[in-house]
């Protein structure tokens, strides 16, 4: 780059590197490479992988979790976390199941599922922003609380008998192999991408995550933004509960057990800093697809579930550690 070093008037360029150059060095490019690698490996390892219907089935491994992961990404970027998301699913699903027994139909069930999610999110948000409690402790508490209520209501029973129209969310197809959940996933991805990267709200999320005090001192209503993010996470958990309950057509209190960790893994694998302040939605989308394909590929190879969780753990650690290790090597050489 040639620049005239004028003394008279100092012009600061807008960007040091073009947006393309910047994108090429990003975490997302690494994730694309990993995704291609996993895809290639899977298609070589199993003859059943490259089948449109199998691939379509595989998306269920990540679509519901990813819906929560988008909201969780915003929450983690803002420096908070919600570990109660899987328990919100359990509670929302239980509420819908109970409503079915009372004779409610699909539109009401949808509202009850989303509404329960919102209420749970509001409760978390109030404890964190209203009372100033640390979110990790609050949501570990509500993790027990919400699922505890589900267990109290259901015991070892389960709810079933969902109306057939309710099956549309988790079992329906829009066209050919394209499921309803895929469409919901895609819409959520685009909406969250726009919200985080192009709106005033998204800017404030990044500012809060990098320095909540300076954000407050810059006139941002920090508590209000954080409360909104908890609401949003609750709402997305409610949406995931609708999809999952619809797909399983039944509710047990152990539904979605342990999902909070998979959601957080997805977000971190997607390049969101667990310390807050940075991360992107495209990264989370890629991470969701990678995790879904890895789980599906291993399933095709008849690898048992426990080994799968080992694999996902190793994937997370290595994707995060490798650049750090390479970075260290570079530092030592120079």
């Amino acid at each position, binding site marked *: 780059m040639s620049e005239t070093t004028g003394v008279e*008037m*100092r*012009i*600061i*360029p*807008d*960007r*040091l590197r073009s947006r393309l150059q910047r994108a090429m060095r990003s975490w997302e490019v690494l994730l694309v490479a990993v995704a291609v690698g996993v895809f290639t490996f899977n298609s070589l390892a199993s003859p059943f992988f490259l089948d449109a219907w199998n691939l379509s089935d595989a998306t269920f491994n990540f679509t519901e979790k990813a819906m929560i992961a988008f909201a969780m990404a915003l929450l983690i970027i803002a420096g908070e976390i919600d570990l109660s998301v899987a328990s919100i699913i359990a509670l929302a699903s239980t509420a819908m199941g109970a409503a079915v027994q009372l004779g409610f139909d699909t539109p009401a069930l949808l509202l009850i599922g989303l509404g329960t999610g919102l209420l749970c999110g509001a409760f978390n948000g109030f404890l964190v922003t209203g009372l100033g409690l640390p979110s990790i402790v609050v949501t570990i508490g509500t993790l027990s609380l919400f699922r505890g209520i589900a267990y109290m209501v259901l015991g070892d029973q389960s709810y079933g008998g969902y109306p057939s129209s309710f099956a549309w969310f988790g079992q329906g197809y829009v066209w050919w192999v394209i499921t309803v959940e895929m469409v919901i996933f895609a819409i959520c991805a685009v909406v969250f991408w726009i919200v985080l990267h*192009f*709106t*005033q*709200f*998204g*800017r*404030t999320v*990044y*500012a809060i995550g*990098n*320095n909540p*005090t*300076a*954000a*407050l*001192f*810059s*006139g*941002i*209503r920090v508590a209000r933004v954080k409360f909104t993010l908890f609401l949003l996470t609750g709402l997305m958990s409610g949406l995931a509960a609708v999809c999952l309950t619809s797909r399983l057509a039944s509710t047990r209190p152990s539904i979605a057990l342990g999902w909070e960790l998979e959601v957080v893994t997805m977000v971190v694998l997607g390049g969101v800093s667990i310390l807050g*302040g*940075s991360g992107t939605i495209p990264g989370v989308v890629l991470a969701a697809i990678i995790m879904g394909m890895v789980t599906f590929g291993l399933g095709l190879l008849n690898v048992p579930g426990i080994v799968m969780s080992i694999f996902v753990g190793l994937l997370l650690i290595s994707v995060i550690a490798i650049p750090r290790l390479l970075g260290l090597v570079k530092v030592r050489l120079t």
Partner: protein
Amino acid sequence: MSTVAQKMAARPATPPGGVDARPVLSLRGIDKQFPGVKALSGVDLDLYPGEVTALVGENGAGKSTIVKVLTGIYKPDAGTVSMHDQPLHLTSAQDAVKAGIAAIHQETVLFDELTVAENVFIGHAPRNRFGAIDHEAMRRDAAAILKRIGADINPAVRLADLGIASRHLVAIARALSAEASVVVLDEPTAALSAHEIEEVYALVERLKEDGKAILFISHKFDEIFRIADRWTVFRDGELVGAGRIDGVSEDDLVRLMVGRHVGQVFPERKSTPGAEVLAVKQYAHPTEFDAINFTLRTGEILGFYGLVGAGRSEVMQALFGVTKPSSGEVLLDGKPKTIKSPADAIEAGIVYVPEDRGRQGAVLGLPIVDNVALPSLGALSRGGFVKMAEEYALARTYTQRLDLRAAALDQDIGELSGGNQQKVVIAKWLATKPRVIILDEPTKGIDIGSKAAVHDFMAELAAEGLAVIMVSSEIPEVLGMSDRVIVMREGLIVAELSGDDLTPERLVREAAGYGEAA
């Protein structure tokens, strides 16, 4: 092995105030250079056993630098430190402790979750024969030391359960546990109540009786004349005078402290204050300030001077909506305004450049452009969507006005120097087109070049009709920039000075509360 307490008890007491005593610690020709600043040049200092030497000087005179040299945190560029005529090489804080130099800072680093005894003996706890910490002996020794300094503190309680004065005593006990012969007290009474201050004086007396050589740093003249035996004045990193306290008057010290300053040129200003913008009436806070009344006019620079802890920043942060006042009224253009958050303040046209730039001012980790745009996002957005081209245009305009030095607007603000970070923080506020701008220690910790740029810019803003409040602890800056100066002490406004009353001597006297009783 005998315990520390026994050793202390066994030592013969040195007669207090031995006039002919030789110095315990001598510093000769100490130089210390920082990038762009000569913090100390050719400084000498002697500390005598059983005597208190008061070190006075304005902010930036080099007091804290010399403390850091004494405690091994800074290595001087030139000069010698010697103890009992033996040269000392202090390359770490550990060395200083080993040499018997103990320092108690304004905000001493102690450990809240440990017990008092553990705090006293941290790093050199007594061991039992298995090499593990001997808690029994540690508690016993700590109790003996605490008793010796007259502190009624149970060594088994957690430090977090103690008040600030008791913590000071623990810090002092810790200094003594390491068998110090030199004790440095850096403004030990700055944050204490009158009763607690008496305890500190009593303690200093006891340390004197023990034969310790004490360096006492203070801004308060009454206490200097009460407890010091000797005085030393620093100004602009140089020693300007030293002697015995009975041969000097308060006026002499003030004159030496303020002297004639070198090297700083302030912009020529022709001040033409216009209409009244801001009026603050009977503003009060439960603990920090009370009965604050002042007005501010357009085109005016109003200085706020006072010692650290006088409540100036607290008043400003209340005006900006960060802290809540308990009573009082804020009038903007004659109309009452309720400001409950910084967002409200910004809407009302009041903005605040904080003293703590790294924590409250700049959002480190975000690009320059985002930092500048942050408070203006509402104006830069349509339907919630940020118009990026306008965002960059805004950042470009205001960073150019402030002559920012940066590689690109999308550079992380954390990569800039302190002075340039400050320019970004000021730029972000100017972009909101405020009516009142409050600058809290605007040039603290920034290089001379950026300092001049900030000063020029403040003058420019006032000339354009902005109302400026500048909180500053630097006398030359206060005198060079302000049209009027309000002096605060202990949460109250004690003087409003302008014109011929605005002299360095007056500022120092009002801020320190000396001359009031007379």
